[in-house]
């Protein structure tokens, strides 16, 4: 998927565990894990806002666009 979720990078920078983030944001651990692993199909703005607030960062720090490269042979 072209959208990469760099949540674990931001969590490491802020030295925050998944459990702690889950408690502060108010999302279940399983949902947060789905987001971290890049398996989520969508994220609500309200959720993104809470994550950015807790991790004190910008949405661009968590989400990255990496276009899929196709090899031409």
């Amino acid at each position, binding site marked *: 998927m072209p959208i990469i979720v760099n949540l674990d990078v931001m969590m490491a920078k802020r030295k925050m565990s998944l459990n702690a983030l889950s408690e502060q944001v108010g999302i279940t651990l399983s949902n947060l894990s*789905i987001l971290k692993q890049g398996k*989520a199909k969508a994220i*609500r703005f309200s959720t993104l806002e809470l994550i950015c607030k807790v991790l004190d960062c910008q949405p661009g720090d968590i989400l990255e666009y990496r276009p899929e490269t196709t090899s031409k042979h």
Partner: protein
Amino acid sequence: MKKLGNSSLSSILLLITRITWWAECIFVGIVSALAIALLFAKKDLSFDAPVSFSPVLFRALTAKQAGTPQGHLNITRGIFYLPIECNWKTIGTMLVIFLIFFSLILLVTFQLKKIFASFSRNEPFMESNILRIRNIGLAVLSYPLLRFLFDAGLYRYLRARFTWTADLRLTYSFDFSTLLAGLILIVIAEIFRLGSELDNEQKLTI
């Protein structure tokens, strides 16, 4: 009263379908045992077929082929009674026809049981439910077709073996309403497929 989840209408329907399922299984067992018992009992059997006729023009029926037992017509009830020989071939054929028709009923009950079980767990849009609803639709769709083929075959059998001296016709018609119900169920299965996709997307939206 809530419709999905524990202690809901779905859980009541689940209980009903479970009881119905076991009752149907027992019924099949009893009928099969009775069919086998008939062979040993050597009792005379009578096959009943509904007929429509004009009583003013009715004459006696005569068997076309030698050795075919003569049937008689109950004018009041409009039913033709045909005595049949109690042997392995006859009992076997009747049992097979019964099992073919009843297997459709068993299939529908079994699928409904599974569907209501998923409803009771608050998981209506499971992938397996799509297939189950479609199977129920196909079973419902095939019943009028099988019934029509059976009645048409019976009509040809009776016409071939008896001389009809009156305007006598076997009563059978095609059940369009059941056919339509089957088609509607197949469409509902597709709606459930869409529901499943939306449900999956919703679950993966954080």
